[in-house]
């Protein structure tokens, strides 16, 4: 299955393990990725609070470039997914958005006819590839590994459409397909406070702490996520959270394709596990 791959800025920097593991498992799942040539930042959340018009226009350039190839877009970053998907939907639903975007595209010699879809990587893995193919690739038995699936907000809300906005299960389904245990995790779709970390950090830390706490209570070995911002907040800030709340969290946060790649027999190094700040070495050692 052929797709246009839109990595986004995070996957080139802080979340490069997500990019690397995605590209590594794609061929095994018969996902043929072609990176979008000369893609630009989608605009995301920060742009939304300056100018929604500009964020639509930024996303639309990517959509127009991708439409030339004709394949649907895969966006692994949940913020990119939301931004691109929202633009795609709003252009169809709101004439004023379509007008503005069309004017902007025209000056760059581009056009967009709304013929492609924006898909999250999680959606493609579960719904296009299917869990049978996932199971067919297993090389390691992850039996006994306790995994908490953290979806965050933007993967499943607001437009989402491939999973429940209140009680998502696609990540949990992958965990089970990998032979691991999916722990009870009611905080799985609650916000980690990422978007207010720059303004009211205290509150963001508290929200992330609550998520880690829920995972710790179930003796979770590893948390997996499909979102780069969720990852940063739970991982890079874990030490700060420990300090602030006198806690002792030591829970590795993996991008879900990293765990998939590991289950498919790839080494920890191949999956860039050593680039994580909270190392999963101890948790994964008995499975190596």
């Amino acid at each position, binding site marked *: 299955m052929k797709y246009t791959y839109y990595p986004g800025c995070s996957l080139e920097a802080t979340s490069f393990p997500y990019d690397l593991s995605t590209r590594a498992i794609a061929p095994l799942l018969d996902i043929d990725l072609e990176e979008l040539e000369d*893609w630009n930042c989608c605009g995301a959340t920060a742009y*939304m609070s300056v100018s929604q*018009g500009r964020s639509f*226009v930024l996303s639309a350039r990517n959509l127009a470039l991708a439409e030339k190839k004709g394949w649907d877009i895969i966006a692994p970053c949940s913020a990119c997914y939301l931004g691109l998907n929202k633009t795609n939907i709003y252009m169809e639903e709101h004439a*004023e958005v379509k007008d503005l975007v069309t004017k902007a595209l025209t000056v760059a010699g581009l056009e967009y006819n709304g013929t492609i879809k924006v898909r999250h990587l999680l959606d493609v893995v579960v719904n296009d590839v299917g869990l049978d193919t996932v199971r067919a690739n297993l090389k390691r038995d992850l039996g006994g590994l306790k995994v908490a699936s953290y979806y965050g907000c933007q993967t499943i809300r607001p437009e989402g459409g491939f999973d429940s*906005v209140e009680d998502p299960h696609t990540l949990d389904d992958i965990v089970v397909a990998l032979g691991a245990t999916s722990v009870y995790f009611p905080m799985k779709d609650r*916000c980690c406070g990422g978007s*207010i970390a720059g303004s*009211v950090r205290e509150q963001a830390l508290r929200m992330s702490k609550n998520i880690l706490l829920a995972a710790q209570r179930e003796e979770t070995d590893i948390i997996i996520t499909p979102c780069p911002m969720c990852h940063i907040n739970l991982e890079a800030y874990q030490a700060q959270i420990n300090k602030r709340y006198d806690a002792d969290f030591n829970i590795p946060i993996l991008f879900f394709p990293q765990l998939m790649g590991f289950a498919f027999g790839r080494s920890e190094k191949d999956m860039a596990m*050593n680039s994580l700040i909270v190392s999963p070495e101890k948790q994964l050692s008995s499975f190596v």
Partner: protein
Amino acid sequence: MEEEKEIRLEYTLARDFIDEVYSIPGGEQIKKCIQCGTCSGSCPTAYLMDYSPRQVFAMVRAGMRKEVLESEAILYCCSCYMCQVRCPQNIKITDVFYALKRIAWNETDLKAPQARLYKMSPIFFDIVRKKGRNHEIELMTRFSLTAAPLEIFKQAPIGIKLFFKGRLPLGGKKIKDLKELQKMLDVCEEHEVLGGVV
């Protein structure tokens, strides 16, 4: 005990404000708010807000411009979309909160914590205009320097960790068709209705 109540005359309410908010895509829906409070009950930060999301909608419709734009409600909204997916009237609540943030950001006499929030966006905006892509290290440094010089010491350990894990490249990437992209952004400037405030 005597209760004090403020009474406002209709002509003092900011009619423009109501129209401003209604003009965002889907904004007209606000008229249909039934004040059920589902949004407030779903909101993870409502307990910190001076006005709950439900109250904000009542205030928007009452044209209470200053109170809404200076409220801590829009400061604490973390865009989780929980209210939006639950609203029985299909109001795009998070979008409205974004719009309120944008209007507030354009006002100069804001309360301090909010002003700080809005310093991140223009920096991001500037980087994307210059490069076509975001460059995290530049964003973090410039934000810390302009908005919170002391923060840089608190946040430095995280940056250093990421850097040594190879996750904060120093050089940012530039796109090839940058000129075209800038032209596209200029079009937005000419169409302030969607491009500027809202």
